């Protein structure tokens, strides 16, 4: 009875369990009518051995867990985890020999201990992970400082934009609603320039002559007629428009419900587009043949129909584009009578 004061709970629990185990064994023995004595003896001793070992392991785990609250918590926590693992192992080894109740009780005890261990670990780890989090915050903070510091750096790059827009008023039409623009690039001095159409709504644009590059951004319900582009056309974010243009390269991004009448030396590409249709070039004005020839665009290559869709890499036809049915196509558009007007702007 001496160990009892040291481990009253365990002993009491063990006593209960022993008692109950005995009852179980008795009931089992009575239920198995022809139960052989040797099997009984072999049955009894493993259970008792298990119960004593289980009690020891449980005590070890409990003492380790309670030690977690005091000094050297990490080591105790590890010891507790090892002890609980030991309990699990004991249960696993003895499981085939244990009566159902005993097994259930042991498993419940192990689960309780695991839960207690988890609580103890979570009480401990916050300190750990807290310091770690602090560290990661410290690590994150400098970049955040960089980020907050970089906006002052970022505006300078953006500053050139307005000034450039101011420098190049003749190089494009921007931010208009319901206007008609006519531009004859042959009479202006910027023959080797690029041209920009941006932020236009319900506008008509007629560009005669040649330019080196054309940038088109954010157009809604516009009609755009362009002579020859001796370089590339980059179109982004247009909707409900009609474009008639000749160029070496044409890239179309984010266009919806828009028709393109193209002459193009290479294959036009679309990306993130839907409901776009293609047809051959139909523009005419006095002197267009010369402009096209000078730009190497006199030939009809038929590439207007060879559209590559970056969002559709299957062999079958992309659902994002089609040809304009012949009966719906625009007739040749002659803009010879359109002349530049100063009151456009």
């Amino acid at each position, binding site marked *: 009875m001496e160990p009892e004061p040291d481990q009253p709970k365990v002993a009491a629990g063990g006593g209960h369990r022993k008692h109950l185990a005995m009852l179980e064994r008795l009931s089992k023995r009575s239920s198995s009518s022809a139960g052989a004595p040797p099997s009984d003896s072999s049955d009894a001793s493993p259970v008792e051995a298990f119960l004593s070992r289980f009690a020891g392991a449980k005590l070890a785990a409990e003492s380790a867990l309670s030690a977690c609250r005091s000094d050297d918590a990490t080591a105790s926590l590890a010891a507790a985890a090892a002890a609980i693992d030991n309990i699990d192992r004991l249960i696993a080894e003895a499981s085939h020999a244990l009566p159902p109740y005993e097994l259930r009780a042991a498993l419940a005890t192990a689960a309780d201990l695991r839960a207690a261990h988890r609580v103890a670990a979570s009480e401990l780890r916050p300190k750990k992970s807290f310091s770690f989090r602090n560290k990661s915050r410290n690590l994150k903070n400098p970049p955040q400082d960089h980020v907050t510091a970089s906006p002052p750096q970022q505006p300078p790059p953006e500053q050139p934009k307005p000034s450039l827009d101011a420098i190049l008023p003749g190089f494009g039409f921007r931010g208009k609603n319901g206007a008609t623009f006519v531009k004859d690039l042959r009479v202006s001095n910027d023959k080797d320039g690029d041209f920009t159409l941006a932020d236009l709504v319900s506008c008509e644009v007629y560009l005669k002559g040649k330019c080196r590059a054309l940038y088109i951004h954010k157009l809604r319900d516009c009609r755009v007629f362009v002579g020859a582009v001796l370089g590339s056309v980059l179109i982004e974010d247009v909707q409900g428009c009609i474009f008639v243009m000749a160029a*070496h390269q044409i890239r179309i991004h984010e266009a919806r419900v828009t028709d393109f009448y193209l002459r193009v030396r*290479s294959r036009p590409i679309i990306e993130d587009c839907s409901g776009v249709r293609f047809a051959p070039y139909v523009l005419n004005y006095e002197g267009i043949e010369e402009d096209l020839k000078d730009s190497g665009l006199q030939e009809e290559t038929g590439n207007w129909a060879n559209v590559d869709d970056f969002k559709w890499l299957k062999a079958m036809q992309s659902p994002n584009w089609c040809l304009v049915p012949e009966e719906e196509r625009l007739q040749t558009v002659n803009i010879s009578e359109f002349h530049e007007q100063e009151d456009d702007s």
Partner: protein
Amino acid sequence: MGLLSIIRKIKRKEKEMRILMVGLDNSGKTTIVLKINGEDTSVISPTLGFNIKTIKYHKYSLNIWDVGGQKTIRSYWRNYFEQTDGLVWVVDSSDIRRLDDCRAELHNLLKEERLAGASLLVFANKQDIQGALKPAEIAKVLNLEVMNSSRHWKIVGCSAYTGEGLLEGFDWLVQDVASRIYVLD
């Protein structure tokens, strides 16, 4: 670049360099490669995947990987990073609206560890177009000076249309890569 790969390169009879060309779509990457190789540049379709060109350049053999720049395929750039000796970033100097995109994509690329050792040549292309930003302005907008301590870089104005500046750029890149890789010559 590990010591082993350096040794391997030194031992190699054919002095090879791997050059990766990237940049936003419409910047003129393919045109630059074809121009420098003396090929016809009048019919070039937007690049759907990538092109590889092997070019003899002085005593070196350049393996130039020209990778398409459309938004959809930019995520595949990283498949080409391995073993890159020289990086060429091409900018459309007249596409002022997208320079912010351009800077973001470039700095995203430069974070890549596999490109940490590569020399960087920035081509401010389309200088022949009136209104194009000058190389110094492009350098400022792209915030290139942040790499001063971490990487060999240079910006060169060029025109793939006329061919101006292309040799100057490649001369620098090849010299810089060679001085790093073929240091024992």
